[in-house]
Each structure stands twice: as structure tokens, then as C-alpha cells.
């Protein structure tokens, strides 16, 4: 980052300037927003001079923090699509674990219907790079994807060469992305779980 090449004094000055811009921007914010900004200004200053790791790109599209990326897709639903997809999700109790576990790099995934069932939000947290992740989906659970995505208006089919373009076209990169453990992939968490279990068993034996 450019800021790192600056001297301490220059950095302080630029943060001061940024904070001033903030104040200006918030001058037409609701009163409680202005007040909160004043309350939080010290915290903001220290965060700005000692910034947390930045959000980076997940590849073709999307944001990534450490090893964990976000995918947020909003699609118009095809006629009858909402009804079909809803029935499918309900059949599985809203839980797609057998399919999703197979992907192996998926942390969380949600399906949310909105605007009177005319649009769907599909949002996931996953490990690593966009292209690899989509390829994993395609290789590991193609039938699930077609069952689900056929509810989406204009979905070309997962085996179509246009599938990735369709997904990228409907994806919106998040402006803000937070992950509690950006250094832990799904596989790494699984490994830690096994270690934790082994340690518990070990301690039981020792006692």
C-alpha cells in the first residue's frame, strides 16, 4: 500500500485529512450518525493508521479476506421458478448439507427470495479463488446446480460454456467483507476439529 511508504508524519496528516472528509460527508447524515462518528473518531483514526488486512479480489469477481471469499448473486427468477426452488429446498429441510459438503470449500450458503418471489439472493462464503470454486461446484454437484439454477431466468445449464459468464454477470462484489477467521479454510477447520478430539481423548486417558 502506498501509505506504508509514507513517513509517520505524512501518514498522520493524510489520516487527518481523511477524517476531515468524513466529517464533511457526514454533515448531512442524520444526527445520530454524526454523533456516532464523533464518538468513534478515535477508534477510526487508530484503525486507519493501523489498518486491518485489506479485502482483496477473489479472482474474476468477488471479495476475499485472507483465505475466505464471498460470492453474492442476485438473479431474476424464471416463471414458476420460485415455486419449484422453494419446494426443492423444503424437501431438504432448507439444509443442503449432503450436496454442499461434497464441494469441500464452502463455509456458508444461503438462498433468500425477495421482491415478491421475483428475485433470488444466493450468497456463499468459500475458500480461495472464484474460478476454482465454480469449477468445483460443476465437477462435484452438477445435478444440484441444474435443479437449483433452472429456477433462474436465462440459466444456460451448468455444462454450458456460458455458465460462468452468466454467474459473473449476476454477481455483485461486496463493498465490505468480514470473516472471523480469515486464515482458516473449511479443510483446516476440519483438521482442527480432529486435533481437538484427539487431544480430548488423550487427556481422558492421561486422567
Amino acid at each position, binding site marked *: 500500500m502506498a501509505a506504508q511508504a509514507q513517513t509517520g508524519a505524512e501518514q498522520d496528516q493524510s489520516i487527518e485529512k481523511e477524517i476531515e472528509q468524513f466529517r464533511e460527508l457526514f454533515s448531512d447524515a442524520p444526527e445520530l450518525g454524526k454523533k456516532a462518528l464523533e464518538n468513534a473518531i478515535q477508534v477510526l483514526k487508530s484503525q486507519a493508521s493501523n489498518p486491518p488486512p485489506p479485502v482483496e479480489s477473489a479472482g474474476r469477481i468477488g471479495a476475499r479476506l485472507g483465505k475466505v471469499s464471498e460470492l453474492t448473486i442476485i438473479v431474476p427468477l424464471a416463471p414458476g421458478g420460485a415455486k419449484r426452488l422453494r419446494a426443492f429446498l423444503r424437501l431438504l429441510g*432448507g439444509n443442503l448439507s449432503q450436496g454442499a459438503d461434497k464441494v469441500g470449500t464452502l463455509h456458508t450458503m444461503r438462498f433468500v427470495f425477495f421482491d415478491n418471489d421475483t428475485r433470488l439472493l444466493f450468497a456463499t462464503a468459500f475458500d480461495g479463488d472464484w474460478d476454482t470454486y465454480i469449477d468445483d461446484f460443476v465437477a462435484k454437484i452438477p445435478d444440484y446446480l441444474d435443479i437449483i439454477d433452472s429456477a433462474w431466468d436465462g440459466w444456460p445449464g451448468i455444462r454450458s460454456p456460458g455458465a460462468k459468464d452468466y454467474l459473473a454477470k449476476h454477481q455483485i462484489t461486496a463493498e465490505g467483507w468480514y470473516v472471523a477467521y480469515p486464515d482458516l479454510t473449511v479443510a483446516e477447520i476440519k483438521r482442527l476439529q480432529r486435533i481437538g478430539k484427539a487431544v480430548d481423548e488423550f487427556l481422558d486417558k492421561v486422567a
Partner: protein
Amino acid sequence: MATQILTRPEQDQGVEQKIQQVRKLYADAPEMAKKALENALPSLISQAADAQASGSESAGRIGIRQGRVSELTLITPFAPGGAQRLRTVLGLLNGNFSGGTKVGTLHNMRFVFLDNDTKLLFAMAYDGQWDPYIEDFATKIPDEMDIIFSAAEGWPGIRSPKVKDWIVEHQIPAEGWYVAHPELTVAETGRLKRTGKAVDEFLDKVG
């Protein structure tokens, strides 16, 4: 859950019926979706039976939960100038809202600007029940909440007695929710990380 008191044959019948419903609905789906459904049917039947025993549950007042991890998905119109303010705040933080760590029960969180900066999508994965979680936000990062959400139209302020109703009004419960490690809270994952590190150090000493 009520379904747990069903006897096995009753349960199978319920699944059989649901599968038939899904098949009927997919009769007018695109050809590839019909084919995908038939391909996936054997595995779907077993999943549907499992789902009756361990499907998604309620996260409390609103939203759904898988094991210990719940989802919150909120879509709200921006207040005038709100999108610009929020984008600047997130920019200052490099897109990484690390204040979320203070809450202690937040797995991941995203901010996505929709429909030409007229709406904000805010989506989180968190531990446990809706009410205590919202209260955690209010006690642990009230100013950060007001800075962010004063960008939303009609935000009453985190200290307002109406704030919970405002959130409920804009929250849309997910129809599908998957969590890779539903039994792990943020705290529990933190504990496993420490255990893993201690084991590595221990093995280093032994080796």
C-alpha cells in the same frame, strides 16, 4: 420438532409425498433440470428423510439456524447520500469491518450495494439466537452500528427501543441455509485454533 414424533413409515410417506410434489412442479421446468432431478433422486430421497430429523430451525424472532449458526439477511433502501457515506466508511477500513471481532459471535458479514446504489444488502452468519445477538451489537459496537446504518432509510438508532422492530421489518428469512461446521461457534473455533497451535508446539518440542 413435531416431525420427530412421527413413526418411520409415516415419515417415509411424508418424504414420498414431497418427492412427488417436487417432481410434479419440475414437470414444466427446463429439460436439463428435469434430467438433473431424476439423476439426483436416489440421494435426494435419503437426504429428505434426514432433513425431517435435522432440518433448519428457527433462529428465534426471525431467520433460520443450522445447529449453532444462524443467518441474518437484511435488505434496506439507502437514505439520501447514505450509499456514498457508507462506501467511504468501508473504504477507510479497507473493506474489512474488523470491529465485528468485538461482537465475538460473528462468523462472517457482507455489505453489498444493490440496484444502482439505492439499496443495501447486509448479510451475516452468527452464533445462536436473534435477540441476544442484536443486543450484543447494541452493547459492544453501538457507534459503529450507527455510523453504518445511518446510511439506511428510517434507521431509528441502535439505542432506540424501536431498533429491533426496524431490523425485523427489513430482514428476510432465508429458505435455504447451509453451514459447513454447524456445531462450531466462533468461540469454539477460537479454542480449536489455540489447541491446534499448542499441539504443534508440543510436537515440535518432542520432535
